[in-house]
């Protein structure tokens, strides 16, 4: 009994810290509708800055608490800088585009933190006066944890007062409800957004700084907190402060008691809960349906038509190179080209649901990975030859795509993205945890091609034929009635339904089709690498897929192709040129977002149209 109580208290302490971070994220989202991936980086910076300040300032209460508050304020200011330089310029961009921009910031901060604070974990001092523990029912409980349990509700109370008792707070609440209206009221929207960003970042920094007496400061803090914070914010309902508090409580206690019952399941538990909540309550526990974005897309997506002759010639030239050049290339170049061909298909499959489908997927890697695992498992357990494995890959991915998609395509925007993420994480943790079947993180080895396809050149042509074929097929689908139906429900669900189109069904089938295509890519990838690992379906791979599509341009058919080639080429080169490739890559992403918001292919198309007149 005492133990259960203490377990609950431990859960409360975690919940409290989680709430600090999540509250900042949800406040920022509520007003600006920006899904700030860099929120975790701000949290990490808060911890690092607090470490520096606290260890530099004189020991004692003033030094410690001054350092913590100072770090939070500095992080708030850093948030302002990010907002003014970057986010302010892209408020009108689609959500995933903003996600991409803030992901660029994550990469930049990672390397800057490494340069500034070094690689070793830093253990900060404990809080003065709260070093020890107290006895609760005869068991010891750290004072600092008790203090943290108090901080959460206090911050929640202060935020409530701020939002309900000040004019600024009233404006923020109004903006959360209806962004356009506040703009129409003549409020200085810029100042409002910037100040909200300051507050949200400050909360992230405070959350990080307050971890100082609890855990060591390290370079992995950013990504480990951001997924949890996303989960809390989404489960609670985007933009809802009390929702975030409730969800933090739920997740914190779930952790604390989950490890008592099923200690091995902690990896997936939170995502199971998130999936469940989103399936049952599509807008989180306390969230409200988003006010239908007024005026639909600010600017309508462009028409699609047959490729202009210039582009067609370019494509044919590229194809000629892809077919004729490889016999003269070495094995390494061939394996890079094979990988590029595979990633082109992967990107094209995501593009189908993001571009024409207008859906957001933050977990597309799941289907890539399921294809890879489908092929590898068939080989390992059934002794299936390569071609059978390759046939099974899209089947496995497609079936799971239909199962997961059934729930995902009902939701929209960020919620849909988060549900796809939850399913991807569930698939990932099954691959990670089901050691008997999948080999766990050690993966499945020896997934090499059949003898006839073993030479790199042969395998390259095989991959080229399948990937290019599938990509062209997807392109064909986009020009066919089904692709038009996808775009129809994206452009106007109202009209689509009014002419007999079952929007859900179209989205669902589109999702399944994209998953199957990603599965082909995954299967080919497995045989190209000779092995399959859970990393094939982890978050970074999903992010890579998004990057490729968005870099290329969502609203151009050649976008995913250009994006995939650009990103793989860039990464492959960068890793070899500099140790700080994340800094460079992050900067490139940020610059692209700012200056080529339509993506590379989109920008090229705009230029071409400007020169040749509108077709």
């Amino acid at each position: 009994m005492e133990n259960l109580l203490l377990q609950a208290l431990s859960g409360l302490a975690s919940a409290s810290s989680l709430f600090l971070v999540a509250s900042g994220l949800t406040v920022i989202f509520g007003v600006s509708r920006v899904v700030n991936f860099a929120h975790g980086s701000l949290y990490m910076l808060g911890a690092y800055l607090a470490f520096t300040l606290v260890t530099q300032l004189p020991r004692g209460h003033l030094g410690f608490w001054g350092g913590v508050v100072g770090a939070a304020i500095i992080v708030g200011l850093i948030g302002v800088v990010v907002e003014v330089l970057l986010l302010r310029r892209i408020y009108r961009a689609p959500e995933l585009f903003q996600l991409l921009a803030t992901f660029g910031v994550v990469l930049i901060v990672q390397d800057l933190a490494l340069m500034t604070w070094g690689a070793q974990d830093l253990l900060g001092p404990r809080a003065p006066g709260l070093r020890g523990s107290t006895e609760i029912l005869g068991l010891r409980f750290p004072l600092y944890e008790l203090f943290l349990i108090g901080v959460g509700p206090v911050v929640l109370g202060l935020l409530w007062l701020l939002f309900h008792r000040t004019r600024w707070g009233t404006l923020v609440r109004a903006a959360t409800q209806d962004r356009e209206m506040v703009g129409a009221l003549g409020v200085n929207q810029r100042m409002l957004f910037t100040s909200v960003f300051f507050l949200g970042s400050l909360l992230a920094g405070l959350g990080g700084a307050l971890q100082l007496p609890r855990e060591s400061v390290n370079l992995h803090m950013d990504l480990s907190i951001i997924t949890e914070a996303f989960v809390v914010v989404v489960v609670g309902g985007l933009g809802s402060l009390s929702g975030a508090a409730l969800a933090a409580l739920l997740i914190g206690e779930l952790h604390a008691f989950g490890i008592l019952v099923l200690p091995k399941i902690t990896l997936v538990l939170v995502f199971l809960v998130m999936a469940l909540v989103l399936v049952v309550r599509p807008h989180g526990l306390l969230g409200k349906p988003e006010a239908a974005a007024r005026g639909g897309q600010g600017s309508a997506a462009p028409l699609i038509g047959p490729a202009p002759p210039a582009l067609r010639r370019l494509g044919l030239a590229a194809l000629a190179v892809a077919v004729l050049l490889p016999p003269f290339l070495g094995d390494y170049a061939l394996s890079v080209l094979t990988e590029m061909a595979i990633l082109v298909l992967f990107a094209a499959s995501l593009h189908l649901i993001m571009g024409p489908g207008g859906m957001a997927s933050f977990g597309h890697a799941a289907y890539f990975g399921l294809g890879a695992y489908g092929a590898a498992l068939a080989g390992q357990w059934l002794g299936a030859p390569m071609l059978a494995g390759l046939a099974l890959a899209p089947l496995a991915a497609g079936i799971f795509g239909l199962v997961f998609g059934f729930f995902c395509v009902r939701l929209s925007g960020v919620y849909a993205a988060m549900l796809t993420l939850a399913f991807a994480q569930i698939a990932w943790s099954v691959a990670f945890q089901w050691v008997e079947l999948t080999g766990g993180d050690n993966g499945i080895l020896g997934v090499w091609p059949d003898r006839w396809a073993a030479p790199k050149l042969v395998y390259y042509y095989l991959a080229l034929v399948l990937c290019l074929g599938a990509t062209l097929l997807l392109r064909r689908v986009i020009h066919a009635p089904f692709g038009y139906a996808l775009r129809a429900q994206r452009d106007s669900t109202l009209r689509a339904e009014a002419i007999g189109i079952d929007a859900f069904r179209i989205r669902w089938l589109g999702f399944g089709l994209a998953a199957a295509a990603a599965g082909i890519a995954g299967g080919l990838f497995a045989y190209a690498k000779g092995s399959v690992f859970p990393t094939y379906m982890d978050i970074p791979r999903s992010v890579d897929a998004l990057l490729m599509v968005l870099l290329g341009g969502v609203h151009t058919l050649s976008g995913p192709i250009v994006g995939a080639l650009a990103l793989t080429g860039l990464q492959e080169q960068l890793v070899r040129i500099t140790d700080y490739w994340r800094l460079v890559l992050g900067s490139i992403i940020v610059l692209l977002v700012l200056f080529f918001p339509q993506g590379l292919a989109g920008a090229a198309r705009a230029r071409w149209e400007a020169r040749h007149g509108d077709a």
Partner: protein
Amino acid sequence: MTGRAIGRRQILAGAGVAALAAPNLARAQATPIRIGEINSYTAQPAFLQPYRNAWILAQEQVNAAGGINGRPIETIFRDDAGKPEDAVRLAGELVNAERVSLLAGGFLSNIGLALADFANQNRRLFVASEPLTDALVWSRGNRYTFRLRASTYMQSAMLVEEAAKLPAKRWATVAPNYEYGQSAVRWFKELLTRAKPGVEFVAEQFPALGRIDAGATVQALAAANPEAIFNVTFGADLTNFVRQGSTRGLFERRRVVSLLTGEPEYLDPLGDEAPEGWIVTGYPWEQIDTPSHTPFREAYRKRWNDYPRLGSVVGYDTVMAIAALLKKTPSTETEAMVDAMAGLQFNSVFGPIEFRAIDHQSTMGAFVGRTVLKNGKGAMADWRYADGKDYLPSDDVVRTLRPQA
């Protein structure tokens, strides 16, 4: 902390200068022997910077001493960013484009396995330096892969020997939830039960790697009221676990046996909060004054103005093992090198070791001791060197574990 990442060009330049400075190279035209090294530099910088530093030091020393029969060695480093699929691609690049003679490296077990499989498929020698998983030399061992570091099994076995001496009957375990943590716990349980029938395991915690919910984990362990604890967490998880554990009194009147915790990589970040009296494997670098270790420590300090970590030993000895191999066989042809690797003996920083022909595992050992606080820092006391060859299963058992053996 002086560990700044070193730009790749600097490294190559450094290697080049060292090569030029080598007197024996007056013979000229000596083309360098190229080694391809792949590791998770950006994903695990804390461990791999000291590793690479020592690697460079070793390479400089080998080249200054005339290289391999007059040919300098040269290393091309690649960062796999913690992704096995990238490691495989980079291995292809190193082999095909950079024309390296052999591959080395690997920190994470899954990357080690991916590279081992690549080596097997492409018939290239792969000298795995760090990855601990037993599968690398046993269940998934292959002709082309050799491993330097003492494996999960070996280190667990070393600790079981100490754990069996304790009076404790009721044990709890805590380990990161991935292959390394799971197999460490599995071996520990199996070996300890064998060594001391009657022990029982009353609680198991498997926090996600890098995401330990330390307070709740500590509380859950305490609730089971074990007499002793086997810990496998490391890095940030370890620091959080130790902090919560000591505040909540988990470690009082309980013995803790802990894998790797005596390594400076993990002990040093704990500062004056390093736990006392834990039985650990590790590396008491400041206290080992042997003819093979002292010169290494001083050379490392001189070169990098920092003290060596265990990663430094591994990096240094990987180069030294490769150098010994290249001196043993005149050819850089893979099959000849692989044949020479089997049974290769050389003098490591920890003393003479051998790459066993039976399973390609080196007999490099580890230091087993007790943690103490010294001058406000964690250190090891009452330590001894546990020679790896004494902590491997019998040959018969190994043959059952390793398919091709």
